[in-house]
C-alpha cells in the first residue's frame, strides 16, 4: 500500500466483517452538497463549542453505555481535562484515560483562547458516545438533540460561533 495514503477504514472494515462472517456495514453516504453556514467573524473573535464523541463524562454523571447510546453529557470547560473520564467500546481507552485531551482537548482549547487564536470557549462542552451503529438513530435522535443543545445555549445568551467536532 501507499504509506502516505490515509488508511481506508471502510475497506478494512468490509474485509474484517467478511472474515468474521458478518454482513458488510452500510456506511452513510451523503454525496449531495452539505449544508453550509458561513463563519461570521474571524476565529480570534469567535466562541467555539467543543463537541466530542469519544464517550467523555465527568464524575457524578451516568457513564455512557456501549449499545447505541444516543445521550449527551454536558461538561464544564473550566475544569481540566484530567477530571474527565472516557468510556467507549471501539477504541483503545488507555491513552485517552492517560490524557483525555487527545479525544477531548479542553485544556488545549483554553490555551488557544489565552493565546488569542480563539475568541472564547463555550462554558459547556457537549460529549457523546459516537459508536452508534444505527445511522437512523444517529441522524434522528442524536443529531437533533445536539442541535437543540447548541441552539438552546445560544437562545439563553451563550455566544457560539462555531462547533469543533472531535470524533475518535
Amino acid at each position: 500500500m501507499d504509506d502516505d495514503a490515509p488508511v481506508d477504514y471502510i475497506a478494512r472494515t468490509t474485509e474484517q466483517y467478511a472474515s468474521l462472517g458478518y454482513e458488510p456495514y452500510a456506511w452513510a453516504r451523503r454525496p449531495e452538497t452539505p449544508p453550509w453556514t458561513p463563519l461570521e467573524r474571524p476565529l480570534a473573535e469567535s466562541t467555539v463549542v467543543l463537541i466530542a464523541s469519544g464517550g467523555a463524562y465527568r464524575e457524578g454523571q451516568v457513564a455512557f453505555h456501549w449499545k447505541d447510546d444516543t445521550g449527551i453529557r454536558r461538561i464544564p470547560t473550566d475544569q481540566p481535562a484530567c477530571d474527565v473520564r472516557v468510556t467507549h467500546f471501539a477504541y483503545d481507552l488507555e491513552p485517552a484515560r492517560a490524557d483525555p485531551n487527545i479525544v477531548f482537548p479542553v485544556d488545549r482549547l483554553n490555551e488557544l483562547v489565552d493565546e488569542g487564536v480563539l475568541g472564547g470557549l463555550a462554558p459547556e462542552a457537549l460529549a457523546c458516545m459516537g459508536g452508534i451503529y444505527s445511522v437512523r438513530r444517529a441522524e434522528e435522535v442524536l443529531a437533533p438533540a445536539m442541535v437543540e443543545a447548541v441552539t438552546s445555549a445560544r437562545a439563553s445568551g451563550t455566544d457560539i460561533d462555531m462547533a469543533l467536532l472531535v470524533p475518535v
Partner: protein
Amino acid sequence: MCHQTVGLVARALEAAGVPTLCLTAAHSITASVNPPRAAFVDLPLGYTVGRPGERDFQRDLLRRAFSAAESMTEPGTIADLGVRWSDDQAWKAGATSGLANGIRSAEGDSRSPRVAEPQYQFESDRAAAEANTG
C-alpha cells in the same frame, strides 16, 4: 462509527445555522458522510488530537485545523493538515476500526461487547452517579 456519527451531527448543526469543523482521522468515512468542513490528521484511531502528554503537538494540530477552517469556502472540503504520526508509517498496516488501531493489536472482532449498561471508568464513578440520580 464515531466519524460517521460526527459527520451526521455536523450536517445537522450546519443546517440549523451553526458553522462546524470536524476533525477526522478516518478520511474515507468522513468523505462518505460528507460534512461541511473537515480537517484530516493522519493519526491512528484513538489519538485524534495526538499522543498523551504532547501538548505542543496537540496545540499545533488544533491551530492548523482552525486556520484551515477559516480559509474554507467550498462545502464538503476535507483539508489535509499535514499532521503525521511519525516518519514510520508501519502502524497503518495493522490499523482497523475497533481496538486494533495499529498501535495496539487485537485478533478477530476487536471491539468490546456492546452492553446496554453504563460503563464507568472507575467504580467510584458509579456510586457518585447513583447518588446524584437518587
